């Protein structure tokens, strides 16, 4: 069955209050969304609360789903909006002095990058300070530019650049300890 047809079928069954289908939706998309939330918020009770709020929002908005994107992308958008909204106030308190720094790419050598192990990267990213990690993830994983990042989390564009620079710098230090990683 094509993915789109399967999604339609799943949504239709959810909309007739089929609990099994609703559980199927949660089981299908929940782990990825939960991983996303943990990435930004950490493995805390708050992450679980956010995940629950996300799925309540998903089920509330499901009758209005227009099939303009995939169901997974739509749920991820809801998740990320909820994550950013939840953490925005907290991050605002921690806004530090804006530093003007020059952006440098920490991954200069593709060869070195290819040799990096996934686990090492994940570990290193998770060890970044929260706000720097958020900016780094938004830029590197979600693909936002600095202007968008600034608007979403309530900092300036330059502040976003600064935090990304710090994140990369820290990552370089963290990854340098990994034997397989060669800068």
């Amino acid at each position: 069955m094509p993915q789109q047809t399967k999604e339609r079928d799943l949504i239709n069954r959810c909309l007739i209050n089929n609990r099994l289908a609703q559980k199927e939706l949660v089981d299908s998309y929940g782990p990825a969304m939960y991983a996303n939330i943990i990435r930004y918020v950490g493995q805390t009770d708050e992450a679980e609360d956010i995940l629950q709020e996300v799925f309540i929002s998903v089920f509330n908005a499901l009758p209005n789903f227009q099939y303009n994107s995939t169901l997974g992308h739509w749920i991820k958008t809801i998740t990320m909006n909820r994550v950013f909204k939840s953490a925005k106030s907290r991050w605002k308190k921690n806004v530090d002095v804006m530093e003007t720094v020059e952006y440098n790419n920490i991954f200069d050598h593709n060869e070195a990058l290819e040799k990096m192990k996934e686990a090492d990267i994940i570990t290193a990213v998770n060890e970044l300070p929260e706000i720097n990690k958020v900016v780094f993830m938004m830029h590197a994983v979600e693909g936002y530019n600095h202007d968008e990042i600034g608007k979403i989390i309530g900092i300036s564009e330059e502040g976003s650049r600064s935090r990304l620079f710090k994140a990369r710098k820290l990552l370089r230090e963290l990854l340098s300890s990994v034997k397989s990683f060669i800068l």
Partner: protein
Amino acid sequence: MSKENKKIKNIFDQQRANLPDGFWEKLESNIPEYKQKKNRFLGLPLWGCLGVFFIISLAAIISYSVFKINETTNMVDRAFESVTKNSKLRTKPSEVLVSEIDSTTVRRINSENSTESSSEKNKQNNTKNTTNSTTNAQTISEVKTRNTTFNETRIQQINKDKKPTTKESQPQTLNARSSFETGANASTILPITTKNIAEVDNKQENLMNASRVNTDGRNVDILSDKKNDNLEDVADKIIDPITALFAFVTTNKELVKMEYTKVENQEIVFERNTFLEGGYNTVFAQRTITSDTRNSWRSNKTKFEKDFISHEGYVNYGKYLNKNIYLIGGLRYTVIKELFDYSYDTISTENFSFMKGKRSIKHTNKLHMLDASIGIGAEYTINKFTFGSHLGLSYNLLFVERGIGLNNNDLLQRIEDSNLYTNNTGLALNSNLYMGYALRSNIELKLNAGVRNYLKDFSSGREGLPIGFWYKAIHVGGGVRYLF
């Protein structure tokens, strides 16, 4: 996006985290209940029935108008026949074409002349009335024009020779318009006289009234039967707004009244004795599951097993008890379809322990049923349309069952093996409405709609699983009736 960002993105996109323990249980209570859309299978027959009844109503109104017109024509004819009979004017009328009749042969009385001359001559000719009645009879001719039969009297001769000596019916002057707008010459279709018949036979004078209608400045008399009131009153009764609307006449009662007399009686009378009919119905069956103890199982079956549009064919034989009442009996073969959709990845193990893991099962179950029905009906025929309904009982035999379903052990199983429908026989209450249109004198096309309620549960005999399947069905369809 730079290469390193792509790699990092890929790494994180593939990340998964196990959901927290008890997450679904917490979430489940917060999931909103969606309002279900109206069942299209129920909406469709509803609109279908409404459509059929609208058509029937429209046809009935139109037919009623035509019926009224015919009735008026007959009324006039009967009145004239009564007059001629009682007046002993029994000479066989001669038939002449209107075109051959000089306009003077049709009664047109100048209002001034008629009133003046009548008073003078009444006294003179009093004694001659009786003796000349036979002669006058010969002046009556039946005029046939198009599809209309008129009786016409040569008024001039009567007026010359005889004037009524007794009290003459007082003509009423009506405000008729100038002429008919039907394409026919007004002078050729003004038909009837009665006043002079009253002159011929005084005994009959009380039977008749004469109405005078001014047409093209001339007065003519129109027959009416006193027993039925005069045509003016008849018209008042007959020409109700609906009739007028569908007769496409709205302005002048007199014109309508005279036009009515031109309409040929087109009522079709069938000799009805017995009939044989057959046809096809689209059936919207709805199953209700009842269970005292297995609510979860019942609710899952209700969720995943949906009713579907079904089909049936029927043959009936009927016997008329009288013109309107008939007995009917016949056979009906129905194929009931149900869509069973068990397509989901993970299901609760509480009731579906057999279905762990991914399953996707869709199946259209078919139940074949043969109904033997008997009933009594009534119908009413208006021209070519027949409207009727019948009520009855049917004995059902569920004789072929194919498909899958949850059996009493919560296992998906072929229903022919699981014996879900243990009661293969049952009773149903039927009601049916129909409208027929006569193609020929003995063949009718019919539209019908109806409801039947199966009174007996199809599975109540099963031991250990007190669950019942109850069916209701709405059908809409058509067929052909042959009248013997």
